[in-house]
């Protein structure tokens, strides 16, 4: 049985509605699954579930071409998979596609007293108690020229999503929100 949406999910939904987002495209993970659940039968926002995250950026770019207002939601592992799709569609097209990247591995990284700037040595990236993707996400965002903001535990995810969409629309380039807080 589905649980009722959490206050964080309700805040994100409200932000999407207020911003006029028409489509949410992506692959759910444990963080974003409650949002995907809440969008399954949303009357005004169409949920587009894809088979691989790279598809999401191409579809969102096509949606933007057609005059729609898409938002991509992917896990950081899927973000890494999406490199050429993001580069070859939204970036090259000048499409201001906003996207949320959920932060798998951040809790373990922070519990170990480490951060995204910790040197990515072979020893670090193969540790069983850590998830290597947490150490690669932000360097990759920067390497690919994607401006981003981080929404951590205790921050307001609704306000962060609202800023993401607004700031993306004011430019001609994709923009990201790294979401390391839980939404449930």
């Amino acid at each position, binding site marked *: 049985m589905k649980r009722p949406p959490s206050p964080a999910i309700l805040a994100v939904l409200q932000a999407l509605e207020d911003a006029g987002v*028409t*489509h949410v495209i992506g692959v759910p993970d444990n963080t974003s699954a409650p949002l995907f659940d809440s969008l399954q039968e949303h009357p005004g926002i*169409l949920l*587009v*579930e*894809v*088979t*691989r995250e*790279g*598809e999401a*950026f*191409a*579809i*969102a*770019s*096509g*949606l*933007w*071409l*057609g*005059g*729609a207002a*898409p938002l991509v939601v992917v896990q950081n592992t899927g973000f890494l998979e999406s490199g*050429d*799709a*993001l*580069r*070859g*569609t939204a970036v*090259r*097209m*000048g*499409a201001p596609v906003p996207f949320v990247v959920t932060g798998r591995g951040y809790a373990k990284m922070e519990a170990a007293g480490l951060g995204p700037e910790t040197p990515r040595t072979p020893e670090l990236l193969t540790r069983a108690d850590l998830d290597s993707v947490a150490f690669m996400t932000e360097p990759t965002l920067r390497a690919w020229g994607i401006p981003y903001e981080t929404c951590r535990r205790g921050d307001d995810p609704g306000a962060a999503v609202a800023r993401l969409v607004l700031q993306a629309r004011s430019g*001609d380039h994709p923009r990201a929100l790294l979401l390391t807080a839980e939404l449930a």
Partner: protein
Amino acid sequence: MLTRAQLLEPLAAHRTDEVVVTTMSVTRPWGRLSSHDLDFASADSAMGHTADLALGIALARPDRRVVCLNGDGSMLMTLGTLATIVGCGVTNYLLVVVENGSYEITGHQPIPGRGRVDFGALARGAGFPRVFGFDDPAAWQRAVPDLLGAPGPTFAHVLVEPTAEGPISRRAAEEARYLKVSLAEWSRIMRAALVAS
């Protein structure tokens, strides 16, 4: 087996206000037949992501038919998109896979499984309600009005002869109008045309 002209000329003849998205070896031939604002060349962009980009346009504009002329190598790169298309429930989408069996613009290297991959079976397996295969020019020519007009999503795979199209560029010297400017510039032109229509 069809020539590139036998494939594209019937589409150009029956095309009215459809969006046409091209990639790889049909990009220039289509651009020689059409200079419409609603043509989009994704040839120089993300490898294999043409069918999903076209799906986005179809989702944004359910009132308008979208035709995607995809390559067989490109289709193999993102087979999951077949399931995504069906899952979305779009009815205004025609996906044509141009089967030349090779990565033509890089010099005709064979695609994986050339001659053994059954694209029609892949589309049927993904749930496409309308799937057609063509290797005869006359049958293709007769079918085009129905392919463009009937509710989909529709999948067609067409066996074509190889050509000698080289790598695609974007520069003023290109013959096709949609290749004379950057992808960003053409995206602005096409978006303005779509939003205004």
